[in-house]
C-alpha cells in the first residue's frame, strides 16, 4: 500500500525524508559527495555555483537556530537563494492548515523545501503535495527522523574510524523522544555496523526497539563497555516535567558520561553528541571538551553533508542524469 517517494524511477534521491529503506550505496554516495564539499569551506570564496538560480525555502515549524543556520549556510555555499520561514510565528498561528500554507509557498517558485515539523510524517506529507520538480529535505519531524543529522554523524564516524565493518556503537539517552536516534540506528545498520547498542532507563526507551536491530541496555557501564563510538543524546527539561525522570542531577549520576565512565569504552573511542549539549546532565564538561570528543567536528561536517544532500536531490531532476 505504501510507495516510497524518496527515490525516483531511476533510483536517484529525489527527496530526503528518512534513512529507512535507502540502499547502502546511496548512503555511501552521500558520504563521498560530502567529502568533496568539505574543501569548499577552506577556500577564500566559500561557494560553488552548483545551485545558482535555485530557491531554497527553510520551512521551520519548530524553532531551531543551529539546524536552520547550517542548512542556510549549505544552500548559500551552493549559491542558491535562501528564504527562511519560521511558521510558528506566522500563518499556522492564525489557523492556516499545512496544505494551505504549502499552496501559498509553491506560488513562489521554490525548488526545495527544508522542513522541520513537530508532527511525524509532515515532510512526507509535504513531499506528496508539491509538484514534481520540487524536492523536500527533512530537517527533523516529530520523533520520526532527522536524516541529515544521522548522515553527518556517519560522516564523522567514517572520518575517525575509516570503516563501519567492525564497530560497536552505543547510543545513550532519551531514545523514546529522539528522531536523531532513530535515523542513526537505520544508518548504522544499513552501513553494516555489526553491533548497535541503546542505553537508557526504561522510561526513555520505547517499546520494541530490538526490532530495529539493536540491543537494549539499562546500565551505562555495561552498555558502553568496549564501544568504539559513544553517541550521547540530549535530555530535555520536559522529561523531568512529564514525570519520566526525577531530576537532571539523578540522570547525570546514572547515565551521565564522565571521564571515569568513558574509560569503560574502547581506548580510542570517540564521543559524539548531536547537540546542543547539556553540560552536567548527559555529559561532563571534561568529556565534551576532551580529546576523545568530536562534537565540534560534527558541526563542521554538517555543512558539507547538507551541501551533498541538497545537490543530489536537486540534481535528480536533471533529464539525462
Amino acid at each position, binding site marked *: 500500500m505504501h*510507495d516510497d517517494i524518496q527515490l525516483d524511477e531511476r533510483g536517484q534521491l529525489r527527496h530526503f525524508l528518512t534513512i529507512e529503506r535507502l540502499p547502502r550505496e546511496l548512503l555511501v554516495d552521500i558520504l563521498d559527495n560530502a567529502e568533496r564539499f568539505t574543501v569548499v569551506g577552506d577556500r577564500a570564496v566559500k561557494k560553488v555555483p552548483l545551485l545558482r538560480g535555485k530557491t531554497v525555502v527553510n520551512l521551520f515549524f519548530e524553532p531551531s537556530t543551529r539546524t536552520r543556520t547550517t542548512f542556510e549556510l549549505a544552500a548559500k555555499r551552493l549559491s542558491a537563494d535562501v528564504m527562511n520561514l519560521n511558521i510558528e510565528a506566522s500563518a499556522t498561528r492564525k489557523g492556516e492548515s499545512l496544505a494551505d500554507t504549502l499552496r501559498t509557498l509553491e506560488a513562489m517558485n521554490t525548488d526545495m523545501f527544508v522542513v522541520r515539523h513537530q508532527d511525524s510524517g509532515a515532510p512526507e506529507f509535504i513531499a506528496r503535495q508539491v509538484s514534481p520538480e520540487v524536492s523536500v529535505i527533512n530537517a527533523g519531524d516529530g520523533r520520526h527522523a532527522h536524516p541529515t543529522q544521522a548522515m553527518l554523524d556517519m560522516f564523522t564516524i567514517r572520518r575517525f574510524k575509516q570503516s563501519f565493518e567492525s564497530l560497536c556503537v552505543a547510543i545513550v539517552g532519551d531514545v523514546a523522544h529522539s528522531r536523531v536516534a532513530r535515523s542513526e540506528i537505520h544508518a548504522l545498520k544499513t552501513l553494516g555496523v555489526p553491533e548497535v547498542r541503546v542505553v537508557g532507563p526504561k522510561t526513555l526507551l*520505547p517499546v520494541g526497539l530490538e*526490532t530495529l536491530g539493536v540491543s537494549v541496555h539499562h546500565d551505562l557501564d555495561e552498555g558502553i563497555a568496549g564501544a568504539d563510538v559513544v553517541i550521547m543524546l540530549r535530555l530535555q527539561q520536559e522529561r523531568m516535567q512529564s514525570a519520566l525522570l526525577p531530576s537532571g542531577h539523578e540522570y547525570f549520576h546514572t547515565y551521565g558520561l564522565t571521564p571515569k565512565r568513558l574509560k569503560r569504552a574502547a581506548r580510542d573511542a570517540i564521543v559524539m553528541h548531536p547537540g546542543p549539549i547539556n553540560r552536567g546532565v548527559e555529559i561532563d564538561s571534561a568529556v565534551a571538551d576532551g580529546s576523545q570528543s568530536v562534537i565540534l567536528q560534527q558541526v563542521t561536517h554538517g555543512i558539507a553533508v547538507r551541501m551533498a544532500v541538497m545537490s543530489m536531490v536537486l540534481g535528480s531532476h536533471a533529464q539525462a542524469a
Partner: protein
Amino acid sequence: MKIRLRGGRLIDPQSGTDAVADLWVDGDRIVAIGRKPAGYGAPAREIDARERIVCPGFVELGARLREPGAEHKASIASELEAAAAGGFTTVCCTPDTSPVIDTPAVVELINQRARGVRGARVLALGALTHGLAGEVLAEMHALKAIGCVGVTNAGRAIRDTGVLKNALAYASTLGLTVFLDAEDPWLGAQGVMHEGAHSTRIGLPGVPAAAELIGLARDLVLVAETGARAHFRTLSCAGAVKYIRDARKAGLAVSADVGIAHLHLTDTDVAAHDAACHVRPPLREARDRDALRRALARGQVDMLSAHHQPHDADAKAAPFAASAPGISGLDSFLPLLLELVEAGVMDLTRAVAACALAPARLLGLDSGTLAVGALADVTVFDPRHDWTLDAASMRSQGHNTPFLGQRLRGRVTHTLVGGRLVHELDA
C-alpha cells in the same frame, strides 16, 4: 405494499434457516416464507433474489451522522442513504453532535431530518453526561422517553470514577443500556496509534493496550456494583476478550462489539504515516486482530460494528498526528464481513447474527429476524459482485477509508426498511 423476494438464499440466524425460498412482504411485515400466503393476491413488486442472499437488515450500534453541527462532513440524509446501500436498516447515531444529544429537542431535530429520507431508520443514543463533559448526569429519563435506545459518553473520557458510577446507577434505574468506550484517559492521552514496535519505528506517540484494559477493568467493576447493563464498543486488543468473557461468566449484563476494520487491519498498515488509518481505538497488532477473530468465532464477542465516522477531505489531509481519527465504514462493511466468512472465521449465519440479530436484541428491536410477523427489515446482497470502492461508488459523504481504491467482493442489491424498498442497486 406487497413485495415478493423471489428465489433467494434465506439466512435467518434466529430460526437457523439457511435455505432457498421466497420471502413475502405486505405492508411493514413479513407475512410468509416459502409458499405464497392465502389471499395475498399479486405482489406490487417482485425482486429477483436468485443467486443472492436474503437476510435480516444490519443494525449499526454507533455511527456518526455528523448532523447537527458538522454538516461539512456528512448529513443525516446522506449517511442514512449510505447505510441502506450498505445493507443497514437501522443506525444508532452517537450523541457527539453539536448540540449534543442531551435534550429531547435534539432527538426531535434528528427524527425530523430523517423523515422522508429514503434510507435506514435512525435511533438516537443519548448522552450519559450533560454536554458529554463527564461531570453532571444527562436527563436520561427525558431522553429515554423521546426514544433514545441507550446512552453513552461517545468516547469522551469520564475521569471522575464517582460520576461514572452514578451515571451507571442512574441509567440502570431507568433500564437504559449504557454504551461504553473503554480507555484510561491518561494513558491514551498523547497517543495517536497503537504503542508497539511499529509506533517506535515510525516515531508516533502510542496508545498502549493497557489503556483499554485499565478502562475496561474500571468500568466492569462499576457495572458489577451498579447492576447496569453495559455494552462495550469497538474492542481492539486481545486482553479485552478475557475481561468480557469473565464478566459474563460472573453474570454481569455486558456485551461487546468489534469494529470491522479492526478485524482486517493492524498497526503496520499505518505505513507512510497515512491518515486514512488513523482511528480510535487504534489498529493494534496482528495478534490482537487474530484474538478478536477467535473471540468472534467462539461467540465470546458476538457483535460487529461499521464504526462509521465520515470526514471531509481536509480533516485527513494533514500529517498523521494532526489528522482527525475515524474511518467511513458503511460502504465497505459487507465485503469486509464476507471476507471474514471466506477466511473461515465464522459461517454466514453467524456473520449475519453478529450484525443483525444480536444488535437488534441488544436494542430490543422488533427486527433482526426473518420470521413471519416480524418487521420487514430485509437486506438482499450478491456475495459475488465485484466492485471498486471509490469516490464514485461510495454513498457516504465521507471517503476517508484505507480501503479506498480497492476491489471488493459482495454488494447489497436491495434494502427494505419496514417493508419499504429504500435502496436498489442500479444494474
